[in-house]
């Protein structure tokens, strides 16, 4: 009857459009071999949908990551309104992990969070489609669709996801969170969409460690793309061939 008038677009259209754009780009590169088409990594206008020209990624240099420093964890908690508690029922989007090679005795400390896989197991198992990968590679939970079954928590090899057990109040207006949903690191998507780095990266830089580099892996001019090209980097559980967006150097 009274259908609201609104901009003509829906999810499917958006997907089709991005597919068309992608195939056009492919055709373009086929026509002119040797010419590379690079996406723009700079701030996109608010009305523009994210595209797969960009793939957000992060490189963590474990040699620079300081033992005992938890600035990234604190910054994450503050940005996203987490309690900071580490009990079995508390949300942790990022945690510091100490590792030791028993053979060589080499010790490292590193931040571990959602690895934003290209082929995310959490998305594979989600029965409702709440767990999804955005076109620019950020893996998210749509809390409007999540039913809290927690299959994704089981599927994730990185223990990256948490479930909200208790009702919450006074959330950050930019980071809605509530009881009954699974959640995890979003690469601070609200900040990324306005061309800022995630809170953890900012905190690491501020502390002077500069162990985390964030940027567009598809843009060869970005710091993170240059770094992963220049240095030997590792995916955690690379054997699973998930092509993680977060890579580590020095482990």
């Amino acid at each position: 009857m009274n259908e609201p008038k609104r901009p003509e677009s829906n999810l499917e259209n958006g997907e089709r459009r991005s597919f068309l754009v992608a195939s056009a780009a492919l055709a373009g590169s086929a026509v002119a071999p040797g010419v590379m088409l690079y996406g723009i990594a700079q701030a996109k206008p608010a009305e523009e949908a994210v595209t797969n020209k960009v793939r957000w990624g992060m490189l963590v240099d474990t040699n620079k990551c300081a033992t005992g420093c938890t600035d990234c964890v604190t910054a994450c908690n503050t940005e996203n309104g987490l309690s900071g508690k580490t009990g079995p029922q508390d949300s942790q989007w990022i945690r510091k992990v100490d590792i030791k090679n028993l053979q060589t005795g080499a010790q490292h400390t590193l931040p571990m969070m959602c690895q934003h896989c290209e082929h995310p197991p959490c998305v594979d198992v989600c029965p409702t489609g709440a767990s999804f990968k955005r076109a620019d590679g950020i893996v998210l939970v749509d809390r409007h669709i999540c039913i809290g079954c927690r299959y994704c928590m089981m599927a994730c090899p990185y223990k990256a996801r948490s479930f909200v057990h208790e009702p919450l109040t006074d959330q950050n207006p930019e980071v809605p969170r509530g009881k009954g949903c699974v959640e995890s690191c979003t690469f601070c998507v609200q900040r990324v969409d306005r061309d800022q780095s995630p809170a953890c990266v900012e905190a690491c830089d501020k502390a002077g460690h500069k162990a985390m580099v964030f940027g567009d892996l598809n843009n060869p001019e970005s710091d993170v793309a240059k770094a992963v090209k220049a240095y030997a980097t590792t995916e955690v559980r690379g054997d699973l061939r998930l092509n993680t967006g977060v890579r580590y150097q020095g482990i």
Partner: protein
Amino acid sequence: MARLSSWLRLAALIGAAAVLAAPSFQAAAGADKPKLEHGKGDKCVEDTDFMRRNHMELLKHHRDETVHQGIRTTKYSLKQCVACHASEKTGSVAATKEDFCAACHSYAGVKLDCWDCHATKPMAKQPGQADAQAEVKASPLMPNPQNGGAKQ
């Protein structure tokens, strides 16, 4: 044929009854409207009548675009609704029954679960410098083998 026309007549009768009934229904509703605080701003992003009937559609549409496609326009965003409509007394859209959202929704008896997750108050400070929502302490290192197991 006679049967068809009798059906038509019945349908017309029902239609006429509905048309006649509508104004009286509105008049009854107008007698005791919810009292609500409109917050700041002269007018909404659309007509009041349109918003009254369709705000939920606009919000639902916009939420899907924002979550899945990263479209962050403010015109139909819930955050912007809250920014304008938050009550001057409580600073919220749903703290008391006179606040903007709660007033109509309690009047109409329609439960809404937006505020289970979304903030009912506008942003306090600059983005990224929001107050710590709960007591945030430095998280101690997780020395247990469970976490070490994530890396092999």
